[in-house]
């Protein structure tokens, strides 16, 4: 009983601190005379603005069966037929002049922030696949008994982990990209997967080494060759054990993908910068962008937690 009320107290403290932080942000923006214009943000995510269709010539409007608007020209131009619209702005038989509004069409346009999100997602997913493949082979090479493979892998891992991702992106785009004639997206994906692959390699290595050698011996004693033993016995166990660090690495990848905006890939971050320059609402935009990244990373960690639960049946 004593303990429960303590817990409740600390939960209340937590809520108070969060409220305090929120108020701090509000007060901070007040102190610099910032006017919040949240209403400007949604249109950059999904744009439902109606566009008006105007008459291209002088003529007469008729509304036909099936709700079709037909405008016949006074000067013999081909008649204008509009089949789909949301609001009709003229009546049957009205005379219209060039430039008069005829109908409104509501179109659902995907806004630049959503396009940025899609690009970030594409970058992350494609890079993830390559990074896992690179990491798996580099990790296996790292523990190989063949010195050539082992040293190659160590060199790769140390080079990548010892240099900033931003610099690697520039090298991939300006040097390797120029030599091999890569487009921006490919160069970005290459940089991200090579970078993340080095970290995954270390996770794979430690995962495999954490499996007791007896597992490999048992598999080999049953007649499996090295590859069969790896695929059927060692890697499934290592996979389960490395899920938590892998999840962290995947989340890092999503976040690191924001750096490719420096080579003019319009990912979520670059889209954010562009929207800021057209809305002059930097605070709202960057909060919205942060929230969108959170949705991606949150969905990923949720999915991985589900997977972990499912794999825990054998514990």
């Amino acid at each position: 009983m004593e303990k429960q009320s303590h817990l409740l107290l600390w939960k209340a403290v937590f809520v108070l601190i969060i409220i305090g932080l929120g108020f701090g942000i509000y007060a901070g923006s007040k102190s610099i005379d910032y006017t919040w214009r949240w209403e400007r943000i949604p249109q950059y995510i999904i744009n439902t603005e109606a566009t008006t269709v105007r008459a291209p010539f002088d003529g007469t409007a008729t509304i036909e069966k099936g709700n079709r608007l037909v405008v016949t020209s006074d000067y013999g131009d081909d008649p204008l037929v509009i089949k789909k619209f949301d609001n009709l702005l003229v009546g049957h038989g009205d005379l219209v002049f060039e430039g008069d509004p005829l109908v409104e069409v509501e179109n659902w346009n995907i806004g630049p922030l959503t396009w940025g999100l899609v690009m970030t997602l594409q970058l992350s997913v494609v890079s993830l696949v390559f990074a896992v493949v690179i990491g798996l082979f580099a990790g296996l090479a790292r523990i190989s008994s063949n010195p050539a493979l082992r040293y190659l892998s160590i060199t790769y891992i140390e080079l990548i982990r010892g240099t900033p991702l931003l610099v690697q992106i520039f090298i991939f785009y300006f040097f390797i990209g120029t030599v091999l004639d890569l487009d921006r997206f490919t160069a970005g994906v290459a940089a991200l997967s090579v970078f993340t692959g080095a970290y995954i390699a270390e996770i794979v290595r430690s995962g495999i080494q954490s499996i007791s050698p007896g597992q490999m011996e048992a598999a080999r004693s049953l007649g499996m060759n090295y590859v069969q033993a790896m695929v059927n016995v060692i890697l499934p166990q290592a996979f389960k054990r490395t899920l938590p660090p892998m999840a962290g690495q995947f989340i890092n990848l999503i976040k690191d993908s924001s750096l490719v905006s420096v080579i003019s890939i319009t990912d979520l971050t670059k889209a954010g910068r562009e929207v800021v320059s057209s809305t002059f609402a930097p605070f709202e935009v960057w909060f919205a962008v942060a929230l969108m990244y959170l949705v991606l990373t949150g969905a990923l960690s949720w999915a991985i937690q589900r997977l972990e639960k499912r794999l825990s049946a054998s514990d």
Partner: protein
Amino acid sequence: MTNRTDKSIIQARNIEKIYPNGCHALKKVSLDINRGEVVVIIGPSGSGKSTFLRTLNQLETISDGTIHIDEVSLTDRKTNINKVREEVGMVFQSFNLFPHKTALGNVALSPIKVKKKPRAVAEQEGRELLKKVGLAERMNNYPSHLSGGQQQRVAIARALAMHPKIMLFDEPTSALDPEMVGEVLDVMKSLARDGMTMVVVTHEMGFAREVADRVVFMEDGELVFEESPERFFSSDNPRLQRFLGQVL
């Protein structure tokens, strides 16, 4: 003295094993084992028993000497060691079951992946083997939900699923609580009765007396002494006496 060479299924001659760290684990060890024979190896800790056993399926390579399993040379570079290992089952002190597979999954894995048997066939055979070792009710349990004795019996069934000609046991009961030793030894005894060729490293002198056709004593990497159980346990070899004095 019978001439064993023509019917022996295992021929180990002058095996030397020097580990990379310089440890000289086997010194001129020679042993022939006949088809259907049960050989028990005993000896003090560090005498090279495990090392010797593991050379027989090449989990350890040898530094010198020759080993033939069913007339196939293990030192010949052309020998496919995976094929040999299909014929030589091994049971470990620490079970080494695959924790991500159920009991049945453990038993069926290698027949499916190595022998390319259809899953249904491999699982049917697996169920029969598990029944044979008394685990009909535990087929779908993961190893973490089995007792030590049950795990070791699954491990035996898993090795048998490859239909080996030889079974190697490395202290199969040493990691078990005393009350579970019996159930594992019973499975091994029935295997011996069925005519399996077995090489068993153990400290269970009762098992050696009852089941072994021959008992081998190793010390300091050397094969000191080999005899039938009756003569073995009544021998007055001083090194053997000293060891038996310690364990009995």
